[in-house]
């Protein structure tokens, strides 16, 4: 009976744990821009505190990496956040002269918090659209 109660206590209803990162190349700035959509309550839980620009920037820069096709990391700068409803939109920019093709990406947001977290990356470039999908334990992946 104790075992049954322990199992029951562990079962919960199941929210959808996902983020969406959209990548675009800004020709004018010669920079990759990443816009990350994340549920505000999940993000606040990951930070362990109220969401501020500095806390959000530090967390995202530790969990999202961009590198050129040779594997050299790109320097990521924070360009702000906004909130719509229960969603946060986080903005990042990284100078790059090489566009999106071959860009190596890793999005590990919230993996330390949710075992079922799935992070989707979308990119539109050179007349094509591509997607990458990250689950816990995934290494960086290259855009085609």
């Amino acid at each position, binding site marked *: 009976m104790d075992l049954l109660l322990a199992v029951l206590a562990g079962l*919960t209803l*199941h929210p959808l744990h*996902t983020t969406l990162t959209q990548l675009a190349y800004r020709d004018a700035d010669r920079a990759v821009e990443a816009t990350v959509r994340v549920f505000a309550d999940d993000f606040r839980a990951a930070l362990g505190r109220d969401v501020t620009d500095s806390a959000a920037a530090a967390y995202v820069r530790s969990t999202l990496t961009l590198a050129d096709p040779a594997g050299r990391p790109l320097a990521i700068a924070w360009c702000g956040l906004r909130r719509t409803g229960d969603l946060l939109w986080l903005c990042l920019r990284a100078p790059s002269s090489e566009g999106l093709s071959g860009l190596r990406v890793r999005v590990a947001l919230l993996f330390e918090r949710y075992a079922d977290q799935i992070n989707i990356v979308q990119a539109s470039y050179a007349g094509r659209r591509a997607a990458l999908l990250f689950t816990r334990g995934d290494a960086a992946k290259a855009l085609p």
Partner: protein
Amino acid sequence: MSELAAYITLGFRHITDLEAMDHILFLFALAAIYRLRDWRDSLWVVTAFTVGHSVTLALAVTGTLMLPTRFIEFLIPVTIVATCLDNLIPSFQGVRTVGRYRPVFAGVFGLVHGAGFANYLRSMFVDQIALPLFGFNVGIELGQLVVLAVAAAALVALDRAFALVVPRPGQGVLRLRVVAVSAVVALIAARWAVERSPF
């Protein structure tokens, strides 16, 4: 990977994740009354569930239908308890649950479960909903078929275990399985319903 493949994977993983116990247990409760030779009936039921949640998902995600999250999260375990009661009541009356109207039942309950998905998808994919919606639904349907296959194997194993202790095999084993599975699932879902009650 194409965008469509990414959303199919999202739906598939969402429904087959062990933490998706609300949906997995609902499918177990739906499948509990069927024997292996009834596989066509159970496939109809799961497909009706998918049609139901696809309809609500489309209506809710496109903004045609707005449903309060708290109420939906309460209704989902209520549908699971109702399915278990539909299994249990004929068993206690000494007749086999045949599930004649079960596809309709599953379709209606699918409407409720779809609203649960919709609130997440609408927020995340607000400006580009068609492809995520389609891909997510395909993934959910494929995932449900996998869950159903696992449920069928688990129910067969349960039948074999019960056959060792039931003096009169056959209908006696099936009845014991329906009662045991439905009672456990109903208990879990009732706990969720109490936790999520908006009243």
